[in-house]
């Protein structure tokens, strides 16, 4: 089962990396970019019979390794293989 984990710094935690990237965008003329924060996307396959089971395993992985919950929040997305596959119409 395809699982995506989105890891983000908790609100209120200063993201110095995000601030630097936003400044760089500003330097390129994107003065309209605000509130930029950098996170992580982790994709994996989980052997599981049901999406709920895959989600529960991914949740345990996040708590034990993938996220540091002092700093980070995480969101788990379990998707079917078809939905994640690149669309044939996209070039």
């Amino acid at each position, binding site marked *: 089962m395809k699982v995506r984990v989105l890891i983000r710094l908790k609100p209120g*935690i*200063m993201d110095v*990396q995000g601030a*630097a990237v936003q400044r760089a965008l500003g330097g390129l003329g994107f003065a309209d970019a605000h509130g930029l924060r950098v996170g992580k996307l982790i994709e994996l396959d989980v052997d599981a019979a049901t999406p709920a089971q895959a989600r529960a395993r991914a949740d345990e992985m996040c708590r034990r*390794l993938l996220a*540091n919950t*002092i*700093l980070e929040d995480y969101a788990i997305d379990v998707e079917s293989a078809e939905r994640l596959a690149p669309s044939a119409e996209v070039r």
Partner: protein
Amino acid sequence: MRFGVVVFPGTWSDCDFHYVVSEVIRQPVKYVWHRERNLDDLDCVILPGGFSYGDYLRAGAVAGRSPVVEALPEFLARGGLVLGSCNGFQILCEAGLLPGVLMRNECLQYRCQSTHLIVDNVDTPFTRALRPGQVLQMPISHGEGKYHVDAETLRTMRQRNQIVFRYATAEGQVTKAANPNGSLDNIAGIVNEEGTVLGLMPHPERAAESAMGGTDGLLLFHSLLGSLVEDGTFSKR
């Protein structure tokens, strides 16, 4: 006093620590590979600096779940001491053996420089040879040394006197300018509740001989040796 210096793939300060223990304080020391679980013949385990497992995911995250780190709670329970410097501090936080976490430096730069540290707690086996308020000089060398912890844990840590070293001026003033990485409360080093695990971002092993430019780091090793009592165990706080 028998020391073990842990080596992860990507550790870089292991030889420096090994040198200081064997050649400067002249104590028995061996390297401990990260897959080792048996720490029975050791009194003090050192987690050196470096980039264990390339610091993939987060600094110290993968090493914090390695066999040798999983063996540390049992090692501590039977009276052992653990010292983590730089990446070793990050690993101890990731493993939950110390509170908090180390984040990317606020300045975004990798900082390799000399720092001054004020000593807040001399009631640990690692700081017994120091005076309260003493200022030490030790180098730092890291990109992720900004200590962070939630406000409530910080309060508890202060109550329990767990903050050991803070970045300061040469005169011992704790100022923003003396803080090289944006660390909360200028924190440079902390201990666990029992005082048996010390984590610090500075490198004591790089300030252990006059040829290195200073010997203040040696005071931590002298404290350790001075904490040994007759039966071979450590005098706790």
